[in-house]
């Protein structure tokens, strides 16, 4: 039975992939804060406030007067030595919390930030566990060969096995490609009729 192969699978390799992905997350999430000029800080802030009168636009984008004024205020306040939080607080006091382009990270609003990574993490873990159990369960059932379906299938499976053995022999006798076992062809083909 081909089932033999399934148990010899290396269980270590997948972690390389997860490590890779984790690395992407960490690197990108860890937004570095390098020394920036006043204008750079100001234009970064422009993108964090909504224009109060134009739906769906930040003051960075909007061309109406109030947006221009707000951009000016940001530059004045930064020049006067206030920091990003002071500017935020100033606008929130005036226009309410919806002036922020994304919710603050406190109270109920922190949910917007917390829920996605938590849910994604849980579902990825769950997916992994479900698939792992599914795989083990199926393998066990296929391996036992005692339920009726598999009994009925047995002659056919035997024939398949025989045929596979034959073509493997043929491959070997063809030479050169003998080193390629059934499960390892680089194009990912499991077929042996190539």
């Amino acid at each position, binding site marked *: 039975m081909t089932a033999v192969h*399934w148990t010899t*699978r*290396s269980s270590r*390799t*997948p972690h390389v*992939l997860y490590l*890779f*992905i984790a690395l*992407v*997350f960490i*690197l*990108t*999430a860890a*937004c*570095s804060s390098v020394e920036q000029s006043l204008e750079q800080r100001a234009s970064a802030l422009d*993108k964090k406030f*909504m224009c109060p009168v*134009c*739906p*769906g*636009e*930040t003051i960075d*984008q*909007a*061309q109406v007067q109030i947006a221009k004024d707000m951009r000016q205020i940001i530059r004045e306040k930064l020049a006067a030595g206030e920091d990003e939080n002071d500017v935020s607080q100033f606008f929130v006091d005036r226009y*309410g*919390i*919806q002036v*922020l*382009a*994304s*919710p603050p990270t406190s109270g*109920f*609003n922190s949910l*917007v*930030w917390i*829920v*996605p*990574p938590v849910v*994604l993490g849980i*579902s990825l873990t769950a*997916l*992994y566990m479900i*698939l792992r159990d599914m*795989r083990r369960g*199926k*393998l066990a059932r296929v391996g036992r060969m005692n339920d009726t379906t598999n009994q009925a299938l047995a002659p056919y499976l035997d024939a398949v096995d025989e045929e596979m053995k034959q073509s493997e022999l043929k491959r070997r006798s063809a030479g050169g*490609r003998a080193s*390629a076992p059934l*499960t*390892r*062809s*680089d*194009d*990912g*083909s*499991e*077929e042996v*009729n*190539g």
Partner: protein
Amino acid sequence: MAELGQLTLMLGLALTVYATLGSVLGARKGIPELVVSARNATYLITVVGFATAIALIVAFVTNDFSIEFVYSHSSTVMNRAFLWVAFFSGNEGSLLFIVLTLSIMTSVALFLSPHSFADALPYTTAILTGIMGFFYFVLVFFASPFDSLDFTAVEGLGINPLLTHPGMFIHPPLQMTGLVGIAIPFAFAFGSLIAGKTRDEWLDLARVSAIIIWAVLGSGILVGAWWAYTILGWGGYWGWDPIENVAFMPWLALTTFIHSVMVQKRRGMFRMWNVVLLSVAFVLAQFGMFINRGGPVVSVHSFGASTLGVIFLGFMLFSLAFALFVFFWRFNDLKSDRPLESFLSREASFLLNNFLLLGIVGVTLWGVLFPLASEFAQAETVTVSAPYFNRINGPMLLALVLLMGVGPVLPWRRANQASLKRWLLLPAIFAIGAFVGMIASGLERPIALFAFSVLVFVATSIGQEWYRGTMARRRSGDNFVIGFWKLVNGNRPRHGGYVVHLSILVLAFGVIGTQFYSQREDTVLNLGESFEIDNYRIEFASHEDEPRADRLAQWANINVYKDGDYVGLLQPWSAFYPGFNQVSVRAGISTGPIEDLYIIPTDFLDARGEGVTAGGGPVTRAIFRVSINPLAWWLWISGPIFILGTVIALWPQPAVELSPARIRRRRPTGSTAFQAGD
């Protein structure tokens, strides 16, 4: 014309009801005549839909302002070429367009579906005509484009100035066709399930139609981004606005499906999952319509806004219930043929792809809905906009791109260390080399450099596969070009897929460049003055204006010099539309592969520093916002490549090649397979 139009709408409604009921009854009771008759009725709906559209077009062309829709969306003084845009620039007209495009697609789908699908076809038909029936119902009773105006008008209001842009000729049609068209693959799958054909009968039909719709929707989104880039005036091609998000989510769900369906096609796995994915895409498309037509969300472009939100919400919930019902009804028949064998296999990489794509969908949906949740839970209005989406979706999108370099080279079933090394070593070396090289050459923003390296990784992975395949062909006597041609031709779905992946890389290249390296300055220039930014010098040479009946347009003539050499003339343009009390701005853009110089006029001023509208006095000064957007050119180049890849993937294989044995033998991905196969 109005009466005729109204009549055809009612006829359309009647026909959809007949076609839906006829199909279902005919199939259940086994009356072939009824099934055929219902199908013919479906074709007739298309004809009637055309008649309705022509009635509306005639009304527009003849300036029939007794019709409210024509009155409020066109005028005699507007640029008449944009009458076509006016057709779908409002709620009623766009609904008519949607029902027409859906009926055309349905007719084509019915006509082309193979004989082997005949048992399930009536149910597929019924689903599609049922959806059309819903739109006709809304058109007839709530949003007829033929309603008459309460008073007499000699002039219309005109078209929304934001829409008078060449992109608008194709963006809304593509977008609407793409969104409503998701119904086609959905109907193929669910028609098949209802008919009890629960194996893979629907697979190819759903796959091919899904890919077409996916390409249409994707192109529509890209054209929309181009429009936003040139007209909204702030250089923002994508703002994670709710309306953008609700078009993006179904596209992502379709992307998930067309990947996952490959596993079903090759391995007989993920059957249940694929049905779920189609349902998700379909319901998300309904959600998009709900948000678009008077949903409870604030957006920058609510052109189709109406008070029909509740009706569309109802339809979305009904669609959801329908999909769930059929799914659980056939739950036991949707089992996989095989279990997953290894977490390091093509199947598993498809699963990870699915996870990431749906993760992005979920994150985006959460962002769209959170303001409502906040309103409900704490009675406080909050905004969830770009910073949230960039922070959370950005890394996931990058991981997805990375997976494009890994997944396709993993073998089905399971991989081993040797094949991993064989296929991933070179890309990894190239990527690390590129990263080190970019750091060494002094480029800033390490995150962007990391992202660029990921692109290098994937590009190398694809290039390596093509190179090895072509070299293998060369060994059998073909030259490089013919070898490559034969390679691609031998497995078009796969290599078309690679071309699409390349287009995504190109797109990502542009996104990273513009997101991380854009610079911008505001400047006040007197006539004749110059301003320098980076290695550009721009000179405000002259000012022109053109007051017209519907708009007061003015623009600056700006000479652009780069490194001292004259590059060209840019004309950043702005116009005031009195009828809409609205200013529309067009950027002056000098584009190229390296960077765009992007200028928008913020204000035109007279000698006293007062703002001037066109014709309102001599302009001596102007305020410009000057940006340099690196790599923006690549965003738009990705479009043609994307289309090319889709066409390659969908190009029909000659029938002889469809026998499984030949496909297997010809599957030309690794060099060993080549030698063996040829």
